[in-house]
């Protein structure tokens, strides 16, 4: 499938573009400052403790890493599933995937106790550790997607691009399995230790990645004047709502499974009923904002025809996703370890009590900085190299398939 689309770098001289890049740069700098502050003083200046070991930086990092693999989906649909309509978006999709992964990993690394020893993590491995596998999965993802991009962008290599796309697609599935298994493999904590976490993370990645992709492509098209056709946008919208429904399904199965066995009633009661902020974030943030409202916006005939609502739904999916990661990561740790079933437990080390955690400013700034880094990479890359097609209107996107006749409003 030879790609006949014309791609161009954006001009990138407008005040809006420069302002955007400037702000993103400032956010990255602020994140570096936060990381330095946390590392210089030690982690006691953050909200983290010996009870809540992974804090807000991990919420952002895991979100970005999960979203990264999902952002590749648009390219996969074109090259693996042969949907030509998505082909012009493939380059941006792959770029966004790499950028989000870079942003997530930067946050993860800067939150280490000893980020100066990153070289140790790169040279000393324990191959039984899912973390160590992930280091390979992440670096492999960079390499594979870079090769994939090269094959898409270099005319002579285009005949291999669908093979590269297939490899990248399989790799991203394994990668997200690895990310979900970071939690799924933990036998110690009741909220984790579940095989369903790996496939759940894959479904979540579809939703998060596509939501971010939608926001990026719509922003870029608006900023550059590239025409984004209704048919293409409708396809993406329909995918997004399907992914959101699937996310809700997987989360429901996870909780129903836990609710069936008496031993997990404690942790489920904590998450769903009595967990205070976590219960609130679960129901309001994750379920209502993250699933139900986007589903309503994208399915209901009165709302689904508006571009503004697609943007709104994408933003809500991202907000809900961050809430979901917060609940998964922080609440999973805040609930006490079940060391002595059948006993009330107390100690000087917070045994038997729900751990307190409130995010500190440097943690939040570091996390947001990771997002800014990802966006900055995209913003700079599309100016330097031809990632964007010059036209995404329906007549170009049409591939003989029965294009959706739906017309979107503003």
């Amino acid at each position: 499938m030879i790609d006949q689309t014309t791609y161009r770098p954006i001009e990138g001289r407008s005040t809006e573009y420069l302002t955007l890049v400037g702000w993103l740069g400032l956010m990255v700098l602020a994140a570096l400052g936060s990381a330095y502050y946390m590392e210089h003083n030690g982690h006691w200046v953050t909200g983290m403790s010996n009870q809540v070991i992974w804090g807000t930086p991990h919420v952002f990092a895991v979100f970005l890493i999960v979203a990264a693999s999902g952002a590749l989906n648009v390219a996969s649909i074109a090259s693996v599933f042969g949907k030509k309509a998505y082909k012009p978006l493939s380059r941006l999709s792959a770029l966004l995937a790499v950028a989000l992964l870079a942003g997530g990993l930067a946050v993860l690394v800067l939150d280490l106790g000893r980020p100066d020893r990153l070289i140790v993590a790169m040279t000393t491995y324990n191959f039984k550790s899912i973390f160590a596998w992930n280091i390979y999965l992440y670096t492999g993802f960079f390499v594979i997607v870079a090769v994939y991009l090269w094959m898409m962008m270099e005319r002579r290599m285009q005949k291999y691009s669908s093979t590269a796309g297939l490899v990248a697609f399989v790799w991203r599935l394994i990668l997200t399995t690895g990310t979900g298994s970071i939690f799924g493999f933990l036998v110690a904590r009741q909220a984790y230790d579940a095989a369903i976490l790996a496939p759940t993370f894959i479904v979540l990645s579809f939703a998060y990645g596509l939501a971010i992709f939608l926001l990026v492509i719509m922003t870029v098209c608006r900023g550059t004047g590239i025409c984004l056709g209704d048919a293409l946008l409708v396809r993406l919208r329909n995918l997004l709502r399907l992914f959101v429904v699937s996310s809700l399904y997987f989360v429901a199965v996870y909780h129903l499974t836990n609710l069936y066995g008496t031993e997990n009633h404690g942790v489920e009661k904590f998450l769903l009923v009595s967990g205070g902020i976590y219960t609130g974030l679960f129901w309001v943030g994750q379920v209502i904002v993250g699933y139900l409202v986007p589903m309503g916006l994208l399915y209901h005939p009165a709302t689904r025809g508006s571009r503004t609502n697609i943007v709104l739904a994408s933003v809500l999916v991202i907000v809900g996703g961050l809430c979901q990661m917060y609940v998964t990561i922080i609440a999973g740790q805040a609930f006490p370890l079940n060391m002595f079933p059948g006993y009330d437990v107390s100690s000087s080390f917070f045994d038997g009590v729900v751990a307190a955690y409130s995010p500190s400013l440097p943690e939040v700034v570091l996390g947001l900085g990771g997002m800014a880094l990802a966006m900055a990479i995209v913003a700079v890359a599309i100016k330097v190299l031809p990632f964007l097609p010059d036209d995404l209107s329906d007549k170009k996107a049409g591939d003989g398939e029965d294009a959706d006749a739906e017309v979107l409003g503003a």
Partner: protein
Amino acid sequence: MSTCTDTTRRRFLAGAAGLAATTLAPGVMLITAGPARAAGGPVTNARRWGLLIDTTKCDAGCDDCVVACRTENGWQGHDRPATDSQWIRKVDLTDQVTGAKTSLPVMCQHCETPPCVDVCPTGASFKRADGIVLVDKHICIGCRYCMMACPYKARSFVHETTHGQKPHAPRGKGTVEACTLCVHRVDAGGTPACVEACAEKAGREAMVFGDLNDPNSDISKVAGRLVATRIRADLGLNQGVLYHGF
């Protein structure tokens, strides 16, 4: 089929290396622990160090083991309970049905198959051949995944710059630490500070230290007499720290 038998046999023999077995009579073997290690050589798996804690002799009001550990290993904190390290802590239990009360110290359980070692990306969490689970702080990157994985909350992250470390117990900001079973004492032929304090200061002798592989060690004798339990035995980790009485 014969190959299967061979493999099993070989594995059995490998496991028994370091043990001298003498056949006294058909079916009766006298097994004694071999030398722990060659002079100047590394520790071997001939020994497996363990602790047995008799909670019936332990009292809720006593924390001599904790104080002794803190003094020995220098993990005094900064009066910030949420982030200060605790290598060992006293946990008080109340049976939810009967109301019966128990108190016991919890520290690193020195599992035979430690989850912290499984998950550590760099191999900084490791188990010595003699069963002591340690952190090699030289290659710890401070990712804290071991703390996520430990079912006993036995590990602490050093949240701030340390001062006044003991020469035998280095500890530094940004790395993870836990009970070392007083490895420096054990290597010199001694017993952990907590065990010593429980016997000498508290006069309780609730903690017994020794070689679980040696049937004649104090710990093996006591463990053979008392019904020993393990915390979260359902995980099948075969900890080196055993409890009795809860």
